[in-house]
């Protein structure tokens, strides 16, 4: 990944309405000494403001699913049906097996009689 060495500044700010905001800023190590605290604080404030705006942004209308999304949903459903059908057969096989055991037991009983 990045070959540029960076300084990470983690920070926590509090918004009266939306609570605690935890984030991090990254600066290239080279030249970091020239960045002032005021600049860093401004970036922190910008992040906080952006977060508040994101939370408060009006929610868009629900978007109808695309044909591709519907097709994928259908794929998932069909696969689920396949899987369930497979399980039904497996269970049915076990039922048959159980029935056959019952029959065997009955026969055994009859033999004993």
């Amino acid at each position, binding site marked *: *990944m*990045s070959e*540029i060495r*960076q300084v*990470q500044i*983690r920070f926590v700010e509090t918004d009266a309405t*939306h*609570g*605690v*905001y*935890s*984030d*991090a*800023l*990254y600066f*290239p190590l080279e030249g970091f000494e020239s960045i002032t605290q005021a600049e860093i604080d401004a*970036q922190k404030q*910008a*992040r906080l403001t*952006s*977060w508040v705006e*994101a*939370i408060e*942004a009006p*929610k*868009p209308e629900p*978007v109808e699913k695309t044909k*591709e999304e519907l*097709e*994928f949903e*259908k*794929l*998932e459903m*069909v*696969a*689920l049906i*396949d*899987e369930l*059908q*497979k399980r039904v*057969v497996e269970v049915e096989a076990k039922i048959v097996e159980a029935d056959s055991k019952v029959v065997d037991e009955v026969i055994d009983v009859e033999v004993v009689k």
Partner: protein
Amino acid sequence: MADRFWVAGSGNWSDATNHWATSSGGAPGAGNLPTSADDVFFDSASHTTDYTVTIDATTKLMRDLTFAAPASGNVTWAGSVAMTVSGSMTLYAGLVRTYTGAITFNATTTGKTITSAGVTLANNITFNGVGGGWIFNDDFKTNGSFTLTGGALDLNGKTIWENGGGIGSSFGSTRSIVFGTGTLKSAGGISLGLISTGLTISCASGTLDLSLLSNGNTNANIGNHTFGTCLCGGFGGVRFGNNSDTTPTTFGALTITGSATKTNSIELYSNIVVTGTFTLNGNSSINRYLIKNQVFATAGTQRTITAGTVVVTNADFQDIVGAGAGSWNLSAITGGSGDCGGNSGITFTTPATQYWFTSTTGSKTWSTAGNWFLGTGGTGGAGRVPLPQDTARFDASSIGAASTTITHDMPRFGSLDFTGVTNTPTFTQSVSYSFFGSIILSSGITLPNSAATKTYEGRGSATLISAGLNWNNSALAINCVNGTLTLGDAYAHGNVGFVLSSGTFDADGFNVSVQQVTSSGTASKTLNMGSGTWTANISFTSSSGLTVNAETSTVRATGTFFGGGGSYNRVEFYTASSQFFRFFGATINEFYIDASAGAKIVSFQEGLTYNIGQFTRDAGTNVITIRSLDFNGGTATSSHNLVKTGGGVVPLNYMSVSRSTATPSNTWYAGNNNTDGGNNSGWLFTGAPSGGMFMFL
């Protein structure tokens, strides 16, 4: 058993009085309506010129069905009512078929024939006769479905083409398909293997042609059979192979040829064995083919491809084992080989950092190979459109002009790093994509609104750094099996979901702001919530495979909070005037309700127990209503259970409470301003005793 001849031109099949005779050109009679024992003929004496026979009323029965031309012109075979043919079917070239009813062949003896004479059917065709056998005399095509439920089909070296309705033989009685040198061709999906018991396929020299299957098809579920040759086209997520048991599907040769689309993929139901040549040719280096395990398999489950000879170009692999005598050294294949993780036995193209470089302004496309270089600023020689194991690097020398827009249009890439980029490019995402490494954005780019979902599928550890950018409705999914995606700073996207399917997501110490957090599937998955604030709906309606490590996080539930069986640190209800709280099995350290913006209703699911360390509300006078609802949010008939853990009391006020059981006793105070809505237990509808530990925040 008798012969029945159609006479007097156009009419409805059921009109025996006017159309069915016992001899060719004979007199019709009401008693001549064909039965399942009668052979039916449309011949030259049926009419002098064009006419139409309409299959009407109820299912029509017959033994043999034979169409021949009238004295001049042609017969139009019309209607939509089902037909059951107990014998053979013979059509003639020139027959006009508008008939769309289902045709069932139910003979119980062998030797029946199917002759379509080039007439394309549009009917759902079913062969269902115990002991029956049908031989195809010529090529056969239907635009409907083609189903074998019982009996024996002999393709007789002919091509049987289902062109839209799917081929099915998953269920039924004893049945078989003998290909000879014939071809079974499907365009609508095929399911031969769900329960392969009872189905025998003889296809040593035949061809299974699935090249027409496309995105709309669901399955190429071909069971654990052996096929001579199998042809596959540009599938779009078609599930392929054997879904009935663990036995692999075997081929003499398997050829998969991609199309000019970026979403070609095959999901393997099972292992496959190719005794001859396994050929997988993606269309191009940017229209690549992805082959992976089936999406519903346990995440990370490998599928083995055993091949005598391996020919691959322009393809990516995930969870695939390369085996057999063929060489799986794909490091130098045309278009490169992409490693999406979980593979073994395959040598892939060596990973490399691909540097973007464009010198002019305007719109640029990710998939343009000429924009990528092996060195920064257009140096190092030509690169490639990044493979899933590559890093896409946008650095200070990448963007040579302002107002550059980069449109990302590939469904997979490795890592993405915008560190130090200049000239403020706009990064748009036109397709949903999977990424396999870290993403590092930069505040020096613009990230417009995008509906593209980004899915982390890397099997190692990766970092997501958003650099203060909101992902603008680009949902995030985590499906990385045993990998981990860790936030490097705060994360936000708009009104779309965050889905955890497998692997670990670690928020570390940062905020997460998304519309809804959900989990999917039963695979093992872990959510490390970190120490930040999650502003989201939590909607873990199923806790299957899910581990939630709340750490010291705070959840500000913007709507519902369905906590599954996880433990949470602090949960706050703020935004909505009515919120539903469903949670079971563990403990929430702190639960806080804020009604400062107006009266609030908080609903708890009936029958569930909520272990809560601190239960507090705002200090205002807006009423908070606590009540029970059933699982679906409907009216409850029983109470929920609130359990205060850790000692102390719950000193509330301005509360309205109904159907709520609170314990321990002498702990839960609804305050001096309260409403007892009834069906409560353990609540004290008075103020907390003086000296109680009030927790107004």
